[in-house]
């Protein structure tokens, strides 16, 4: 290829990349730098940003240690993220194994389990708000028939797993709004099923044959073949699931009437900083919280990758 044609190639490349380059500069690089700068400013959108040094970050640390709104938001986010991710892993693996069985009507079962994940989030919220209504909701009706007391769901501040207690002390514990959100999320586990199913289909049949020769029954085959072979996908599930649930916003905003109701029980970091920015016009503080969120996500991701070799099984290593 001669020099002339590669110069025209370069020109073509630049103009073809131009739309993205403009968007990247104006909608990513500038906002990225601006929010970093504003996190050191007092800024209300009406007058110019005013440099206040570390004041916003100092406010964050005070709120954290004095148990203010921010501490509550961090607790809610952590509870929601950990419960969502662990349930999605357990249910994802369990359902995928069952859906990989060669049974009659397998395609129907797969479609049924995948379908909830295509339901638009707003429609899913409408559905679950009605289903989980503490007074008239279908779910509480069913629970009552089964002899289980009515739960508070989206109207209750309590949570099923915090503070932790022995199972017998859990009796009478009310399942609350965060648990409702987790339940709603787990219902949409279908996307993950697709990936888990593909991974199960990729497990070499010889591994099962060898396990069977060694006299391993169904359970041992699951523990010693299926589960280890699925760890790379489980790892992916954990990383992406944590990032997604820490950033979750729409369903939380809708279910909590846009303010973390009831009594801040669903006020997550996303919602907290959204309200700080657009309700209280405290853009400096909101930017500082956003950067804190970013750093937390980054640290968790790095930590997950660092510790992954301890439990993620990689094929073809030796």
């Amino acid at each position, binding site marked *: 290829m001669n020099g002339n044609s590669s110069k*025209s*190639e*370069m020109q*073509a*490349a630049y103009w*073809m*990349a131009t*739309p*993205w380059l*403009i*968007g990247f500069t104006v*909608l*990513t690089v*500038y*906002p*990225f730098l*601006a*929010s970093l700068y504003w996190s050191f400013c007092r800024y209300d959108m009406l007058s110019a940003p005013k440099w206040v040094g570390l004041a916003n970050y100092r406010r964050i640390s005070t709120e954290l240690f004095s148990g203010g709104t921010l501490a509550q938001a961090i607790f809610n986010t952590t509870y929601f993220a950990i419960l969502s991710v662990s349930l999605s892993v357990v249910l994802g693996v369990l*359902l995928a194994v*069952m*859906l990989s*069985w060669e*049974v009659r009507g397998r395609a129907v*079962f797969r479609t*049924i389990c995948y*379908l909830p*994940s295509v*339901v*638009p989030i*707003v*429609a899913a*919220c*409408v*559905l*679950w708000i*009605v289903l989980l209504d503490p007074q008239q909701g279908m779910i509480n009706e069913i629970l009552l028939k089964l002899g289980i007391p009515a739960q508070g769901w989206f109207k209750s501040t309590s949570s099923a797993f915090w503070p932790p207690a022995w199972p017998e002390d859990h009796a009478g514990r009310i399942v609350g709004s965060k648990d409702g959100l987790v339940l709603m999320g787990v219902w949409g586990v279908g*996307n993950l099923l697709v*990936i888990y199913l*593909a991974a199960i289909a990729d497990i070499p*049949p010889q591994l*099962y044959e060898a396990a069977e020769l060694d006299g391993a029954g*169904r359970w041992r085959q*699951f523990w010693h*073949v299926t589960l280890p072979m699925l760890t790379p996908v489980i790892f*992916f599930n954990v990383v992406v699931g944590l990032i*997604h649930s820490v*950033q979750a*916003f*729409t369903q939380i*905003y*809708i279910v909590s*009437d846009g303010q973390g109701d009831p009594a801040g029980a669903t006020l997550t970091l996303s919602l907290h900083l*959204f309200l700080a*920015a657009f309700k209280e016009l405290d853009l400096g503080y*909101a930017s500082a919280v*956003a950067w804190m*969120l*970013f750093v937390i996500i*980054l640290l968790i*991701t790095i930590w997950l990758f660092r510790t992954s070799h301890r439990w993620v099984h990689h094929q073809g290593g030796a």
Partner: protein
Amino acid sequence: MNNRTPGWLGFLSLVTFSALMAAPLLWLVLTSLKTPEQMASEPYSWWPSPIRWQNYSDAVTAIPFFRYLANTLILCVGNVVGTLISCSLAAYAFARLRWPGRDVLFAVLIATMLLPWQVTMVPRFLVIRELGLYDTLGALIVPKFLGEAFYIFLLRQFFLTVPQSLIDAARLDGCSEVGILMRVMLPLCKPALLTVGLLEFVATWNDYGGPLLYLNDPERFPLAYGLEQFISSHSSELNLLLAAAVLFTLPIALLFAVLQRAFLSGIATTGMKG
């Protein structure tokens, strides 16, 4: 082999779990066809009798359904077109052209996918407002004409699979780079374009955060946002609310039924939806 065929206990749990997954949707559809009296009747019955189709016609008149739908469709068409144009141009430049800075910029592009939307939310909002786009559908459409990292990455991976000989042949015939993109790349990468278009369509159809941030005038609300307003104002007419939710879900479910393969390949390449 025995790990592929369950015992009766396994089969029973498969049926149970599937029933639990299906029950909410089934309940949604059946309840959306009930009369208000049936909804309150004791003993509870799942089945609506008589079936009240009128809930659906009532639902579309109780809210400005068709106005919201029109807004949603404008957004969907605008966003899909914008995404396909801007992203395939950039993806071609990244995949098949040599230019200084390409590899560095591509690494940066990948890195931006890790940035939480909360970090850029506020300044982005102010940029859009400065551009005079606040409270217009343009606030949501214009950024789509400026490319999106994730789709550029996805399309680039597909463009890389097209044989270099086809590109060289087209160049020898005097075809411009855009011509190569239009006549060689895009026709060969139709499944990838379908996947990207579909993901963007569904993402736009479902988007709630965008309208919440950028739209103020109810005349411009898309369905996802308009429907949510309906929750608080019509909470006494639950059957209508549920009918509206069914109407809102149906097109996406149908799209999935028809284009199942493109949906699943989107997940297979990305591990998540939009």
